[in-house]
């Protein structure tokens, strides 16, 4: 049997036998080299209670080359692209070692959720949100966990809203009052959310960005 297949089979079997880690690996199609990793969001973080799915591709020269992983589940985190799920983690790049396994790499992703590295971001906007206002960042990450990862949401806060069940303002990590304020000037709500998000109109930044500046952006 080909060495890569032998190794991957052993890893899958090992993961199946290990119930304690909470990590699961499943096939996506017939290929043993395209897999799906599943792990629970770490306790004590905005991702707690969520279930996170990861797309896994085993390259030809595995385990000498790193496994390719990206989030299938949308995650609000400085080191994960909120659009594509791409992950910024050294062991998936130049710090890869063949002694790492699919399971240990998924555990590293789980720890990445515990300890964001905003100085080495994958998603610059999310990283700015994190640095400007950690509390607001955590609310947004918790909300994303609820919407996309089946998390419980923030206790005691009603997150329900009309329509498709997603609150676009909370998704973007903004204050409803700010969005209402500029919408009242006659701008389309979606555009207001987009501009305020890109300007990082949060926390102490709000006092540093003039209304004129926001309007200027809205008029572009």
């Amino acid at each position, binding site marked *: 049997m080909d060495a890569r297949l032998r190794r991957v089979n052993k890893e899958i079997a090992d993961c199946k036998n290990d119930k304690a880690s909470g990590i699961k690996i499943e096939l996506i199609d017939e290929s043993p080299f395209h897999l799906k990793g599943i792990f629970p969001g770490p306790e004590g973080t905005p991702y707690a209670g969520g279930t996170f799915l990861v797309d896994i591709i085993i390259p030809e020269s595995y385990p000498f080359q790193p496994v390719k992983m990206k989030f299938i589940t949308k995650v609000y985190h400085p080191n994960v692209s909120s659009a594509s799920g791409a992950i910024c983690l050294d062991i998936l790049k*130049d710090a890869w070692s063949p002694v790492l396994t699919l399971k240990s790499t998924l555990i590293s992703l789980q720890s990445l959720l515990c300890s964001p590295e905003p100085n080495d971001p994958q998603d610059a906007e999310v990283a700015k949100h994190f640095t400007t206002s950690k509390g607001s960042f955590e609310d947004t990450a918790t909300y994303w966990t609820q919407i996309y990862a089946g998390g419980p949401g923030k206790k005691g806060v009603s997150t329900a809203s009309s329509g498709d069940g997603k609150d676009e303002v909370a998704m973007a990590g903004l204050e409803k009052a700010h969005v209402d304020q500029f919408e009242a000037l006659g701008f389309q709500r979606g555009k207001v959310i987009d501009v305020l998000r890109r300007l990082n109109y949060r926390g102490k930044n709000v006092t540093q960005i003039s209304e004129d500046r926001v309007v200027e952006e809205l008029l572009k």
Partner: protein
Amino acid sequence: MTTPPPSPPTAPRLRPAALPEIEDEPVKGPEQVTEDTDISTLTTAQVFDLNQSLLDEATGVTRPLIDEIAPISTLRAEYENGSPAFVRQIDWLTTKGYHYIRRTKGDGDCFYRSVAFAYVERMMHALNPAQAVEKGVATLKSTLPMLENVGFQRLAFEDFYDVLESLLLSIVTPQVTGKTLNAVGLLEAFQSPEVSNSIVVYLRLLTSAQIRIDPDAFAPFLFHPELGEPMEVREFCEHFVEAVNKEADHVQMTALSKVLQLNVNVAYLDGRNSNGLVDFVEFRSAPDANETPLALLYRPGHYDILVDSE
């Protein structure tokens, strides 16, 4: 393992004047060397890789993971129009009986690959190969529990062990082909990426395990190779020992010679000694202190095997 081809330089992106960037940050991989890179910002290893790749490009050669033995004069010829200090040092090595070298690919694994090759070759050429193999395999077997003790998962290293052990056993026990290992077979094995890289990885794990089980001996010497900052044992081992293609330095050499119980001499060819002498750094871990050491040739950022023969 082949080094990935350098990606082409990307065009500068225009930043929107008013809005903060909305795209994701570009994925940070290892620093890419482009035509705009300032040479002085590169590490010696990067300079070596650059030299090597330019040379290979110019000569149309794809360097194998490890090469046939070659007269040291071929190396001298490369410096004849360049550095007289290197030429003098090469001549000095020749007078000391080192007439040949065996070159390795400059992929960051060259130290481990050189040691591995010389280590297996030594057993193959032993006066009593059966005894040498028996002893070597026994030492190697004792490393299995050691790797587990430092926390490596057996399934993640046993395949690499099996490759190395079966290569050693093939020195005395005929393989499927009905033949025992000879010089041709040894070179073929080390030129095959799967065999060669499996052995390199196993040696990296041994090196790491040796540092991890004896932290007191190594901790004072663990520094980030580029930043020069002190590092924790675990972090150092993960990033600069276990990770693929990472260069070895004094710490890794000490640890590997210790765990494999080898004597190793490393000749430093650095063009610094104006008298043309070459310094040897000695690692002595063989049970018999007088055992002839394996000899490596170091040039900034790279290791080859040095062969002393008539």
